[in-house]
């Protein structure tokens, strides 16, 4: 198994507050890794560091031996990382198809002159782009209207569109930030299936999730964070029995 | 409307083609030419600001022009034809002016008697020129209008050069040593300042201490005034408009300036005194062309104007009045409204009586005598100080 992403000794502070305090983990090719932990543990911050939205205070982030630190998010995306957001971030007033076409931005080969003159290359690339968008919407099993505005879709469908958009990027690494939040039971089952099918495409997945059932079901490894510190990293069944994890969750539960 | 696109476009096209039959379209052909016009009125077109920042000026000019038209018509018109005045708004803006000029051309104007803002008048020159319409410009007077040496353009307002000459003459007469020139960075104002500077630069007499440009429409000119006073001038000449002129006079006095202050013709307004306050305005000189107020024997004219419009005449009323009279004179001399003949008639005029004195155009089509004189604020009123004759 080759390592795809390795994060070592990642630190991030906002002013005096230490949001991430020495996080180290790695993800292999086509592996599903979950990052769990109580609210405010620094999970999403870690995502934001990897994808370039935050600048880490210290530490290393390597993707296939290339450092991602200091790159802007679009440059990270260009290296094959795609993500979804904790609170849906669709382009609400654009059509569903256009949303997914965003994923094609990086590999679409056409320039301004092609667009102005409508060259054969423009037509070809637009055709391909639309085909791909339909393909990925089919892949995530979208039932709703693809031509209408994305914001008019039901919540669960919007989640699917966001994943389809990320997949249209054809990433090697997909970061999913709480994809099951707000989904009903049936939708969660479909999500589980979807994650497996994505993995089958050879895409590695890092998952932030609160639904332990889902986490235990799909993950090959689980990383547990608490107060910005990593407290466990291992196979799901091992992590589940880790006293530190139980403490963190029980502790946080009693306070909650 | 549920028509198919093709039918609707076809019907549009049909409507359009039908409409061309009305005569104004491309296929409509000419409108008969000048031959048919012998009994129609002679149309004078006047482009003036009726909206925008200078909107207040428009009525002064159009009223006076109308007064002249009515007087001439009362005496039977010109060549047996009546005069008719058409106005259009230039909003003191180039684009509106171009549209307005084209509008006047479309309405069949024979002579243009308008033009107040120089920047807005410039783009209208080729428009009237192409239509072979002579222009008698009553107010706009920037040097660019003259520099183009256009045959159809005549200026009956004093030019910047003439105003600068009057200013220099008065400064020398007052024994000024060191003159500060202030302008507002508009073409009219800057032109006078630079021309005054050129005259002052000649050996002898006063010298230019500095030229200071200010931003118009502001309230605080203390920074500019500090610059001016640092050079310790004994004469300050402001060539811009009264809004800033009043503030500058006031702030100069507040800053302790004791020397003379003079303003250009754009600042000659009772508002100048009001803004500056009576103390600060007292003794301020102004370079100004002859106005009804300062002209002996103009009382009757002012009365007629007041009777007709219920207000006092204002800036450029007399020039607008003269422009109409001059146009009538030239058309009469030319025996018709043919552009070339009217231009020739204008060039040949010698001794036609106007407010500014007997008229004869220079080869550049400007007044041979600008008629500038020096006014002064006395007891809060603007009065004649010296006619510089």
């Amino acid at each position, binding site marked *: 198994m080759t390592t795809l992403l390795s994060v070592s000794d990642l630190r991030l502070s906002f002013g005096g507050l230490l949001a991430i305090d020495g996080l180290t983990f790695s993800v292999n090719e086509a592996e599903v890794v979950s990052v769990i932990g109580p609210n405010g543990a620094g999970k999403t911050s870690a995502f934001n560091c990897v994808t370039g939205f935050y600048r880490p205070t210290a530490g290393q982030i390597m993707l296939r031996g290339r450092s991602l630190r200091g790159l802007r998010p679009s440059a990270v995306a260009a290296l094959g990382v795609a993500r979804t957001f904790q609170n849906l971030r669709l382009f609400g007033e654009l059509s569903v198809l256009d949303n997914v076409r965003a994923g094609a931005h990086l590999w679409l080969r056409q320039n301004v002159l092609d667009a102005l003159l409508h060259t054969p290359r423009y037509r070809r690339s637009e055709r391909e782009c639309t085909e791909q968008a339909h393909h990925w919407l089919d892949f995530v099993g979208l039932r709703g209207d693809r031509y209408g505005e994305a914001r008019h879709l039901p919540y669960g469908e919007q989640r699917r569109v966001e994943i389809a958009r990320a997949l249209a990027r054809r990433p090697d690494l997909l970061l999913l930030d709480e994809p099951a939040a707000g989904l009903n039971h049936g939708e969660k089952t479909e999500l589980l299936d979807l994650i497996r099918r994505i993995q089958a495409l050879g895409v590695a997945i890092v998952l932030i999730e609160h639904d332990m059932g889902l986490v235990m079901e799909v993950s090959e490894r689980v990383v547990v964070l608490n107060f910005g510190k990593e407290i466990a990293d291992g196979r799901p069944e091992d992590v589940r029995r880790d006293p530190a994890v139980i403490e963190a969750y029980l502790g946080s539960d009693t306070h909650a | 409307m549920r028509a198919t696109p093709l039918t609707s476009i076809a019907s549009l096209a049909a409507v359009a083609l039908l409409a061309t039959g009305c005569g104004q379209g491309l296929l409509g052909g000419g409108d008969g030419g000048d031959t048919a016009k012998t009994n129609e009125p002679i149309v004078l077109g006047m482009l003036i600001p009726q909206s925008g920042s200078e909107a207040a000026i428009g009525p002064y000019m159009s009223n006076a022009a109308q007064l002249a038209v009515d007087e001439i018509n009362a005496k039977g018109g010109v060549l047996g034809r009546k005069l008719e005045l058409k106005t259009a708004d230039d909003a003191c803006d180039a684009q509106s002016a171009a549209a307005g000029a084209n509008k006047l051309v479309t309405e069949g104007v024979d002579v243009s008697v308008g033009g107040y803002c120089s920047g807005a008048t410039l783009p209208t020159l080729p428009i009237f020129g192409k239509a072979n319409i002579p222009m008698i410009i009553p107010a706009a007077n920037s040097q660019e209008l003259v520099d183009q040496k256009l045959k159809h353009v005549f200026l009956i307002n004093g030019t910047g050069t003439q105003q600068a000459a009057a200013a220099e003459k008065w400064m020398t007469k007052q024994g000024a040593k060191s003159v500060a020139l202030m302008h507002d960075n508009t073409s009219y104002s800057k032109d006078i300042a630079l021309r005054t500077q050129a005259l002052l630069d000649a050996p002898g007499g006063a010298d230019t201490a500095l030229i200071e440009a200010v*931003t118009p*429409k502001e309230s605080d000119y203390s*920074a500019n005034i500090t610059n001016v006073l640092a050079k310790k001038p004994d004469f300050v000449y402001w060539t811009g408009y009264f809004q800033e002129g009043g503030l500058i006079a006031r702030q100069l006095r507040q800053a302790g300036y004791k020397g003379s202050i003079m303003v250009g013709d754009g600042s000659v307004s009772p508002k100048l005194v009001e803004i500056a*306050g009576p103390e600060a305005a007292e003794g301020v000189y102004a370079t100004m062309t002859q106005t009804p107020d300062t002209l002996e024997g103009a009382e009757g004219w002012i009365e007629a104007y007041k009777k007709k419009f219920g207000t006092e005449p204002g800036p450029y009323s007399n020039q607008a009045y003269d422009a109409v009279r001059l146009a009538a004179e030239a058309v009469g001399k030319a025996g018709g409204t043919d552009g070339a003949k009217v231009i020739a008639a204008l060039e040949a005029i010698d001794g036609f009586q106007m407010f500014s004195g007997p008229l004869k155009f220079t080869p550049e089509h400007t007044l041979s005598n600008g008629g500038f004189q020096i006014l002064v604020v006395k007891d809060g009123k603007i009065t004649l100080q010296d006619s510089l004759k």
Partner: protein
Amino acid sequence: MTQLIWNGLFVGSFYALVALGYSMVYGIIKLLNFAHGDLYMLGAFAGFAILGAVGGVSSSMALPVLLAVLVVTMAVTGLAGVALERIAYRPLRRAPRLSLLITAVGASFALEYGMRAAAGADPRVYPLRLGGSSLEVAGARLTLAQLVLVGVAVVLMIGLNLLVTRTREGRAMRAIALDPTTSSLMGIDVNAVISRTFFIGSALAGAAGVMAGAYYGKIDFLMGFLIGLKAFTAAVIGGIGNIPGTMLGGLVLGLLESFGTFWLGGEWRDVFAFGVLILFLTVRPTGLLGERVTERV
């Protein structure tokens, strides 16, 4: 030299007064109230109308009368600001920021040209003027009226600062600035506090308008446009949303302009001021006293 400094401080105190309203409104609802400069104009005209209604006043009574007019005008422009927020801004609070900005531009036009339709394009002249003799201090010439105006500005600014830092009202404002949703959950009436913020900010602009009218004498419907831009520049220089910073920014901009005019000549003054604005926004967008926001790339 001292003259340049005094000129700069005097003009700067006007900038600061107007900039405060900008800054407060921006701080609390992140709206750049483009029409704020026009409230300054509105204040000047309101003062003019009130003075006209009062009639002739002897010059010995000028100062007290003007102070009374100042207070009334502040109330009038304050209410106008509140109305502006209610009509034009509140319905759009959840709309995209672009809509809100465009509305603000529209409000600016409506105020300017509405005033033009009401009062005409010609400048008006205040019937009552602060004149007075001038005195010389350390090589700078200043008038008593200027001292009074600067004094009033300082009092207003100190009062505002106390209000924001020491009172319940101020705490509520700061809370909303940080997080409007949580604030409303905590029982703060967000709408009321925003209204009051508009009232205070607009009242300060109105006060500056009356002071300008009484000192300079000439008022016109476009007088708020440029000072609005300058006040924004001042707020950015000092740190928008930060009250002491904004005051400092006003004074700094006044000084910069004073010296800029001296060095570059009057025709380049505005280019200089806007250049400084762009420089600040590029190099230090948080301004002199603004705190750094968490860096997001």
